[in-house]
């Protein structure tokens, strides 16, 4: 398995991308490099790597000991360029750390050829900032278990680049709806209700820009959906160096696998967009909506996410924070005892206040 490690031009130590300085830096000699400076030195290597076609990652059957076939089918071995250790990763890992020397490693084969991302949004804040944001967020959550916000658990936060399909799509369509306007008035002993029924039609071109769809299936796909939206202004052309110092996953879906889901999602958004233009009515009911694709352009992008896995009372929780905007997603563990106590106190307080309210208004 071919790996690449971006090394400091001064001391040969591994380089990492700093979200704070927005530069590449060496934590040993404290050298800093811009993207342009790195391109001068590693540009040729990157170009060569990008021209490589991804090689088959199938583990040879002869190499696999009996009873480990399932394990081998989901894992791949690579050699760390710093210490020479052989390390195992799963099939979608594109960047990681060597578990022996902790140097950042980018598995280049997984990000070349058809699997080369078109663009990337670099992390905008550091792991420390993510922790602070997390604490800030937790301060307002009074029913979290204490262990959830302990420093030990927060150390599990990891910066991960996740793969997304970014879709630009032009949809031409038409929506028909029935809208109602109701007016009521009274004359003598009679109340009149007038209902005016309108047939509404809206047709036009919708230009979807950077519609994100997770390109990775599995347990994280829901989290990847809801850490959105990202700000498209920060997109940059992809280079592997951005992944250095973070974890990264490669996509495991093709466009054809998710085309149906994307079409359905865009149809729903089209409906909302057309409906937003039907205003001034008391009720609107959609009769039909037809949308056809005029033009569509798909790109493969890597997006930054701070991830945390947490186990509480035997259940795994996944917490995700958008690495650009800080928006968070994830089911939070609830301290049921605290909530029950709060419920009892609230109940008693409400009961007493209600009785007192009734008593004093006598």
């Amino acid at each position: 398995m071919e790996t690449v490690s971006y090394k400091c031009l001064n001391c040969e130590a591994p380089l990492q991308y700093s979200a704070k300085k927005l530069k590449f830096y060496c934590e040993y000699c404290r050298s800093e490099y811009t993207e342009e400076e790195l391109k001068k030195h590693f540009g040729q290597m990157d170009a060569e790597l990008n021209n490589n076609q991804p090689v088959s990652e199938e583990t040879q059957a002869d190499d696999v000991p009996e009873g480990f076939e399932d394990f081998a089918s989901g894992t791949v071995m690579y050699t760390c360029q710093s210490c020479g250790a052989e390390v195992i990763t799963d099939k979608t890992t594109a960047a990681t750390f060597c578990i022996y020397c902790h140097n950042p490693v980018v598995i280049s084969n997984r990000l070349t050829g058809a699997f080369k991302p078109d663009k990337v949004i670099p992390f905008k804040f550091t792991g420390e900032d993510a922790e602070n944001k997390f604490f800030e967020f937790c301060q307002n959550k009074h029913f979290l278990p204490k262990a959830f916000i302990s420093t030990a658990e927060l150390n599990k936060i990891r910066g991960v680049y996740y793969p997304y399909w970014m879709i630009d799509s032009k949809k031409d369509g038409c929506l028909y709806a029935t809208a109602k306007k109701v007016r009521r008035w009274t004359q003598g002993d009679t109340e009149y209700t007038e209902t005016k029924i309108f047939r509404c039609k809206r047709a036009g071109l919708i230009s979807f820009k950077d519609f994100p769809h997770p390109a990775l299936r599995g347990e994280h796909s829901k989290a990847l959906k809801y850490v959105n939206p990202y700000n498209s202004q920060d997109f940059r052309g992809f280079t592997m160096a951005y992944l250095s110092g973070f974890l990264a996953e490669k996509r495991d879906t093709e466009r054809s696998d998710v085309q149906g889901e994307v079409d359905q999602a865009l149809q729903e958004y089209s409906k909302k967009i057309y409906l937003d233009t039907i205003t001034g009515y008391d009720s609107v009911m959609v009769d039909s909506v037809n949308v056809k694709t005029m033009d569509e352009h798909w790109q493969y992008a890597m997006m930054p996410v701070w991830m945390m896995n947490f186990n509480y009372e035997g259940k795994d929780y996944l917490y995700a924070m958008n690495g650009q905007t800080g928006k968070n997603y994830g089911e939070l563990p609830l301290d049921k005892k605290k909530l029950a106590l709060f419920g009892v106190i609230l109940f008693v307080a409400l009961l007493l206040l209600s009785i007192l309210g009734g008593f004093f208004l006598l």
Partner: protein
Amino acid sequence: MKKNCIKRTAAVIAAALTIFCCGISASAESIDIAEVPAASEVNNYAVVYGYDDHDGNYDYNYNNDKAPATGKSKSEPEKKNWLKIILIALGVSIVGTGLTVYFIYRGYKYNGMTEPYEYKDKAPLELSDREDVLIDVQVTTRHIERNNNNN
């Protein structure tokens, strides 16, 4: 963050409304039964003497001292109201607590499930056709019952 604020505000408003409604309902109950005198009481306190003033009109003299002491005493209905007030307060407290706990639970369970795509900013619409055609007008009437009985 905004969504959490809204949820919290909604919970506080729900609790406040609960208390307010409870107070209103309890006071309404108490006014209905305790303060409005019963018909028998009105009669007992009402006309004591009536006479014709020879112009075809009747004049009345009132004498509250002569009202019989056998009317309903005020403490009796109050005792009955306590039970109703407590029952109403109990019901309202259960609903208020249930709703608040549910909103908190929901906030933790579905934390961050907001619109993942800013379609209003990222998906502009160029309208090519826009029609709103009136196709029908329906008028329905309802007779309003008026209570003309002043008693």
